[in-house]
């Protein structure tokens, strides 16, 4: 009997704090209201809302993109470099493909390996085809597929709080972070 009570107590001790976050209703302005199913770079099924719980940098890209998309990754890395180790641990970086037809987990994984991305913090996600337009919609990204499979698209790095609310965005990409955006990232990481 004592052992049963002890294991119940243990379960509650683990479950309650985690459930606390999940039980809070999702804010009406959270992008996680769009609960889109995705596959990550290792082929694991996940959802957009699974990124909830940590401050996130989010963007959309595609692996065969030659112009700007490498700069999106550079921007994420550049921001990480400016953070303290403690800050870095609290930040997630989520890149969502706008080309799920070609960006299968193998293609995403190749990018992660080539750029040496720490997959404890970075996630490269492949949505369903029908979710690309809605995802771009909640993130304020515009894109158009061209006949040759390339994409014409805007590029932004979007800062989300732990509940998925958009705090800031920047279109200044590359190895030198937008200082105002970096300040917003730091502020978000310091919150709570």
């Amino acid at each position: 009997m004592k052992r049963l009570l002890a294991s119940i107590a243990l379960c509650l001790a683990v479950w309650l704090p985690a459930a606390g976050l999940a039980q809070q209703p999702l804010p009406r302005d959270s992008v996680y209201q769009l609960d889109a199913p995705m596959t990550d770079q290792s082929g694991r099924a996940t959802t957009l809302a699974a990124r909830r719980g940590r401050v996130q940098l989010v963007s959309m890209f595609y692996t065969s993109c030659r112009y700007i998309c490498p700069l999106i990754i550079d921007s994420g890395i550049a921001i990480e470099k400016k953070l303290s180790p403690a800050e870095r641990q609290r930040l997630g970086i989520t890149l969502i493909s706008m080309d799920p037809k070609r960006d299968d987990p193998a293609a995403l994984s190749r990018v992660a390996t080539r750029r040496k991305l720490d997959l404890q913090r970075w996630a490269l996600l492949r949505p369903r085809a029908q979710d690309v337009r809605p995802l771009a919609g909640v993130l304020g990204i515009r894109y158009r597929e061209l006949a040759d499979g390339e994409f014409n698209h805007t590029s932004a790095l979007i800062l989300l709080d732990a509940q998925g609310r958009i705090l800031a965005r920047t279109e200044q990409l590359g190895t030198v972070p937008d200082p105002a955006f970096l300040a917003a990232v730091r502020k978000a990481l310091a919150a709570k």
Partner: protein
Amino acid sequence: MRRTLALSLLLLPVLALAASTGGWVRLPGGNFRSALKYEDRNQVRIAPFQLMETAVTNADFLAFVKRHPKWQRGKAPVVFAEDRYLQHWAGPTTLGAQAQPNQPVVNVSWFAADAYCRAQGARLPDWNEWEYAAAADETRLDARKDPVWRERILGWYARPSRSALPRVGLQAANAHGVRDLHGLVWEWTGDAGSLLVDVDNRKQGDADKAKFCGAGALSMNDRDNYAVLMRVAMLSSLEANDVTANLGFRCAK
């Protein structure tokens, strides 16, 4: 004789109702010279499709939100529909005096319009499908080169929007059989988010690859067609959760 007359008189209102609140119109598609200049093609190929004869009405949309309560005003998350969503309705499930049943529904976001169409087993039309359907006047499938036709459209755009919206279906059908693509409300397209426009029009045609990655901003094939320019400006200025008081939609499949 009198019985036949009586019967036909009975049928007339039914037919009129069918014509004005409309079903689906079949459009054959084909090659279409878009008013937008695409860097990768000259003509766009439009597959045969169906388009609603008239825009979705307040009554249609009310039925939808009753069946799908998460799309009611107040329940729909702000990320899908901004705070002015359906603000002209008296309540979340009540139309009221400012929203006549047969007026085209307005104050709806792209997400709400998209959800409505999916619930009908349909979708929003593509920009090219919409423009192809709208190129027609009452007698010609493509009237875009006619300056008189263009003036008619611009005349409508110049009317102040404070007067009450007419009911759907009052205008004559175009050569395809579709009504009110001009002269009633602006309409969402499924790929409104694909309209990439540079606000500085001195850059028209320049490949600003850094901003739009890959191809630069869209520019116009037909610079005299101000109506198309205005529609592009309108849709490209909106976020997917935005609403306006004269933007509605119809579905395609």
